[in-house]
């Protein structure tokens, strides 16, 4: 099962490689990983999308907690949460496609952020599955390039991950 794990870690050189190294050394899946400093510049917040049986997820959480640089770990799937990801897609926009692409983008509440003679660049945010759905709605041949940030997650309501 897919899990979104959030963690806070010391914003130090090499901290990211400790997490990435842990996943590869123990052969855990890693679908996406995003990291950036928080409002407290000494802390980085990381969101890892992974998958595995309950036992594997339990071990992942324990092993992450064991890393000396990791301050706190939260499995967002243990409660209610929100997940967002940003995607930029460059699509062909020539002839009839110019209108068609605009329409599909609107349906998914995307924004066209760059317009060129033969292409649009569409910005889209949402859950990973929404972004997947958008890509599926497009004809493969019109997609020139995609870039996704990987998911960021946050607990709903009072679920707060903070030091």
């Amino acid at each position: 099962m897919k899990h979104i794990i959030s963690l806070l870690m010391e914003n130090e050189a090499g901290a990211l490689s400790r997490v990435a190294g842990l996943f590869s050394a123990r052969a855990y899946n890693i679908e996406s990983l995003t990291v950036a400093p928080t409002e407290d510049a000494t802390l980085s917040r990381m969101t890892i999308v992974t998958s595995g049986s309950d036992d594997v997820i339990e071990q992942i959480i324990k092993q992450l907690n064991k890393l000396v640089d990791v301050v706190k770990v939260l499995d967002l799937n243990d409660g209610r949460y929100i997940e967002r990801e940003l995607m930029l897609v460059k699509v062909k926009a020539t002839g009839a496609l110019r209108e068609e692409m605009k329409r599909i983008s609107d349906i998914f509440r995307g924004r066209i952020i760059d317009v060129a003679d033969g292409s649009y660049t569409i910005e889209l945010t949402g859950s990973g599955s929404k972004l997947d759905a958008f890509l599926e709605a497009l004809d493969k041949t019109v997609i020139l390039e995609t870039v996704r940030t990987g998911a960021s997650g946050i607990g709903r309501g009072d679920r707060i991950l903070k030091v």
Partner: protein
Amino acid sequence: MDDSTQQQAGQISGAEIIMRCLQEENVKFVFGYPGGAVLHIYDAIFKQDKFKHILVRHEQAAVHAADAFARATGEVGVALVTSGPGATNAVTGIATAYMDSIPMVVISGQVPTAAIGMDAFQEVDMVGVTRPCVKHNFLIKDVRDIASTIKKAFYIAASGRPGPVVVDIPKDITAEFTEFNYPKSVEMRSYTPVIKGHSGQIKKAVKILLEAKRPMIYTGGGLVLGDASNELVKLARTLGYPVTNTLMGLGGYPATDKQYIGMLGMHGTYEANNAMQDCDVLLAVGARFDDRVIGNPDHFLSVPRTIIHIDVDPSSISKRVKVDVPIVGHVQSVLSEMNEILAAETKKPDASALKTWWAKIDGWRTKKSLSYDGSSSSIIKPQYVIEKLWEVTKGDAYVTSDVGQHQMWAAQYYKFDKPRRWINSGGLGTMGVGLPYAMGCQLADPKAQVACVTGEGSIQMNIQELSTCKQFNLPIKVILLNNRYLGMVRQWQEFFYENRYSESYMDSLPDFVKLAESYGHVGINIEKPADVEGALQDAFAMKDRFVFMNFLTDQKENVFPMVPNGKGINEMILGTDPNANDPANKMEG
């Protein structure tokens, strides 16, 4: 901006700060080898007399010796190596310590800060190279961070589940100046090891233990590292339950005690492995259910039992085997609390169930799974050498081993009554540790008898340390069980590869007596069983000499009992089985 390259009043160099840090940590020995990147540090060593530097002949041995010093004393071992090849030579030693959770600080030199990343001479990314095999590591980039980083390194190495910590220090940093302030304590928001176990869980565990019909206590290296031997003995005696130790846990419970049923695992006793499989309540303390201990996990879990698991590391719990009552905490603290609860408890263990259980265990004991054919007057049995070693040293020696058949025989036949006396590489299984381990033990306890049980394969992996032993007058006794084979490899080839002895014959061996003598030591060849005991007595009587004993042992002897890979823990081959050495009998490998 301060200019740290100019010395101001009250300031000392980075190298001198390192000396002061080690002094603050009461370090007695630093095991190391000099080189370009650590020359400032070695110059500072020259000018101090607080600790002794032990010059090894290869960096791997420095780390192993520091590791053994930690195993023998419980203190943090310290090794010092230069950058590049010095650092990479240390990696095997670091990984060995990591697998067995040994507290150690390894200081490695690094090329000057400005040269990092430039593929400089003797540059290697030590923090990157060691990341998967350290508890934590640091690269220091400012002279003002040396003291606080070393303080943290010692704290992290020794607390929680111990482990090696690498501190990588660029050469220029060791020449810069700043004031020395050693922090009194360490506060890290990201690292707060648990000490006290959950009281509710501990009460629950005691209740389950008292209700057990077929109880079993299984303890590992964590019990030894946590210095909880006395607490375990008290608990086990109060309850009257059988105790088994893992390879890493030997000595955690006295081997000569009647409640001790031997080591368990791949080469464990018949009674220990059967009791492990058959028990209804299992108390695991500082042990991790590893593949060499429980065999096939599915087979182990095919019968119901309640498992209580005490460990300081939450990630060791329910890693390979799901447990019912997890208790995260320092083993000594948790066992003390259990003893207190038991002392106040009116309920007693079920005496009649326990009697039946012990009768069953005694039945397994009658198999005498450690018996061997010692009738020959011409061929020395390796097991016999270990038995005599135990007698001659009165069971009170530090015994280090390398890895292979001799390691298993030492573990099976030397009865360890005290913790921290059996020093071996259990997790990583590093050949070549034996001699440097013996050096660390002898320095830790100069008056003690130290025996290095080894094989002719392993001893040659760090044979150069004979020179270090001479320099520091270490009166170690090497017990070489020389069967002219990489014995454990040969054994597996017999069992699982139809006797194709691929590269397992040790040809062109040196004359070990002459070799020992050329390093200034005493060498003895022992070729007949009748000479074994006398030679051991003679050797241990030479209290101030290093003695290298070359025992020519049975080339064909195999380690039994043996649980073949992938089999259940009680599906053992015994040495007394008529077709024990018949390869047709061995199932899959």
